C-alpha cells in the first residue's frame, strides 16, 4: 500500500483528528491529534492490511511555534511505511521551560519505551502514562534538556565543575612547568581578532561566501 491508501484506510476508521496527508513532503506524513494517537497506532498495528509491526523511530523536533513529535512506522510483512506527526503548539505566554505532553505509545509499541525516554531526556517532551518515565542518557538529577534551542550549558553539575578549563588535563609538576611556546617576534597590532574564527557562529549563519583576502 502506498501512503495515500494508508491514509484513506485511516480515514475510513472514523476516528476524528486525522489530518490530511502531506504528500508533497519527501516522506509523506499524516498529522494526528494527540487524543487519538493511541487508537491510530493500535489500528495501524492490528489491521491485517496495514500491519505496521514496528515503530521504527520516535523523534521530537523543536520549532519556533512548538514541538512536533514524529513517529516512523513500518510494516515488515507488507513493505510499506508511514510517518505520523503530533504537533503540540506552544501556548501563548509560556516560558522557555514549557514541557509539551503527548500520550506515550509504549503500551502499543514497547519499542517506544527507550525512544520516548530519550526524547524526554534531551528535549523535555512529556509522555503521559509511560511505564518507566526516567531520564535515559543524562543523570537523573540533571537540570534542563540539552537539545532545546535555548539551552544554556551549565557551569556545574552538583559540585562537579563542567567548564573545560576547570578540569586540568593532568596534574602539573610545580618544578617542571610546561614548555613555553616557541618565542615569536612581536609584530604589529592585530588587525583581526583571532576570536572571529575560533568561535562558532550560530546555526544557519555560518560561513559566508569565501572572500579572497590575500589579493586585496
Amino acid at each position, binding site marked *: 500500500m502506498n501512503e495515500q491508501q494508508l491514509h484513506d484506510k485511516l480515514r475510513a476508521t472514523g476516528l476524528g483528528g486525522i489530518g490530511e496527508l502531506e504528500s508533497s513532503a519527501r516522506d509523506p506524513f499524516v498529522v494526528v491529534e494527540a487524543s487519538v494517537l493511541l487508537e491510530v497506532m493500535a489500528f495501524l498495528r492490528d489491521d491485517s492490511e496495514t500491519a505496521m509491526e*514496528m515503530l*521504527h*523511530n520516535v523523534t521530537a523536533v523543536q520549532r519556533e511555534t512548538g514541538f512536533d513529535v*514524529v513517529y516512523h512506522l513500518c510494516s515488515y510483512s507488507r513493505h510499506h511505511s508511514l510517518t505520523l506527526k503530533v504537533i503540540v503548539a506552544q501556548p501563548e505566554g509560556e516560558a522557555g521551560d514549557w514541557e509539551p505532553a503527548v500520550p506515550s505509545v509504549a503500551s502499543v509499541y514497547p519499542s517506544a519505551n527507550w525512544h520516548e525516554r530519550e526524547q524526554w531526556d534531551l528535549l523535555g517532551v512529556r509522555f503521559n502514562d509511560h511505564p518507566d518515565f526516567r531520564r535515559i542518557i543524562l543523570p537523573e538529577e540533571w537540570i534542563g534538556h540539552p537539545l532545546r534551542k535555548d539551552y544554556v550549558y551549565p557551569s556545574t553539575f552538583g559540585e562537579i565543575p563542567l567548564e573545560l578549563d576547570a578540569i586540568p588535563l593532568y596534574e602539573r609538576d610545580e618544578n617542571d612547568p610546561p614548555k613555553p611556546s616557541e618565542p615569536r617576534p612581536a609584530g604589529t597590532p592585530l588587525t583581526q581578532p583571532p576570536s572571529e574564527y575560533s568561535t562558532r557562529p550560530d*546555526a544557519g549563519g555560518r560561513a559566508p561566501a569565501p572572500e579572497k583576502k590575500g589579493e586585496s
Partner: protein
Amino acid sequence: MEALEMYTVDDRSDVYTEELKLNLGPQHPSTHGVLRVELSMDGEIITASRCDIGYLHRCAEKIGENVTYLQYTPYTDRMDYLASMNNNLAWSLTVEKLLGVEAPERAQWLRMICAELNRIASHLIAFGTYGIDIGANTPFFYAFRERESIMALLERPSGARMLYNYIQPGGLRRDVDENWVTDVLAFCDDFEKRWAEYNTLLSNNRIFIGRTANIGVIPQDVVYACGATGPVMRGSGIKWDLRRDVPYLKPYEEVDFDVPVGEGTHGTLGDCWDRYWVRMREMMESIRIIRQGCAALPGGEVMEKVMKKMYKTPLTPEAGEAYMRCENPRGELGFYVVAEGGTSPIRCRARAPSFCNLSLLDSLLPGTMIADAVAIIGSLDIVLGEVDR
C-alpha cells in the same frame, strides 16, 4: 555489604536467602564499552536486570544542529565506530534525499563495495569479541588478521583506518586506485578459506554450542515489539533485509545475494547461536556481493561536479525533512533530518540500531546465569558509541 538489605524467602525451603546486587559494568571486560547493567542475583542466577546507558554520550545530535551537513559526516563515523563506512553512507543518503540529488553510478557501486567490506570487518569484530566473551581468545586474533586486510584496503582510498569519512553527500571523497579492485578480489578468495577455519575452531565447537544454544531466545513478536533489527531480527527467523527489500542503493537491486536467517540449528529458534550464525553467513553473502560489484564496476566520476563546491560553500537544502534507513551491520540505522533553510539542520536524529537492540536486554536476562548474561550481551553485538551517541 550494604546492598544485602533485601531478604527474600526461597520457595523451596524455609531458608532465608539474600538477593545480591551486582553491577555489571561500566568498567567490565564484557560489556563491550561502558554499559552498566544492574543485576539482582540469586546465586549465579539473575532475577532482575536494569540497563543503564549514557556513559559515552557525546552530544552527537546537538553537534549535528551546529555544523554544516558536510561537516557532520566525520561525526557519523564516531557513532558506530566499527562500521563507519555504513554510517557515512546512511548520512550521505539522507542529505542526498534532502537535496534531491543522486550520486554517480560508479560512486554507487563503490559505496556498495566499501559498505560490504566494512560490514565484514564489523562482523569479524563481533565474531572475535564473541569468542572472547565465551572464553576463546584465539579466534579474536584470527578475526583481527582478516580485519587488518580490510582496513588496509579501505585505508587506500579513504586515508584512514577506522573513521573513514569517505562516503560523502554527492558521491565519494576520491576514486580508488587502479589495483584496488584486484586486491579486493584477492582478499575475497583468501577470506573464504579463513571463514571455514573460524567455523572449525569456534562455530562448531561443542563447548561453544553448549554455551550459546538455547540461551537468550528472542521470539519473533518480541523482535517486532522491541524494534530489534539486523542480525538480531534475522536470528529469530524473520527474513528481512533493507538491502533486498527496500534497496537504498541501485546496485543492491542488481546483485544477487541471500538473506541468511536463523534456523534453530542447535536448539530454539532465535537463540544466541542463531544470531551468531546469521552474522557468520552474512559475511559470506557480503563476499558474494563484493565479487559481483567488482565485476560490474562501471567507470566515470565518483562525485558530481556540482557537488564538489560544497567543500567551499556549505550545502543549503530547502526547508523540509527526510528519513532514511540503511542496513548497517548491527541493524537499521535511520537518520531523520529536519531542515529549515540555512546551512545546518534544526534537528538531526539518529535512530541507532544498537540502541533499539539493547532495549531487549532487560527482558532477556532474568532467569539466566551470569555467564549467559555475557553471552547474550555479546550476541546482541552492541556498540556503545552508537547507543549513547
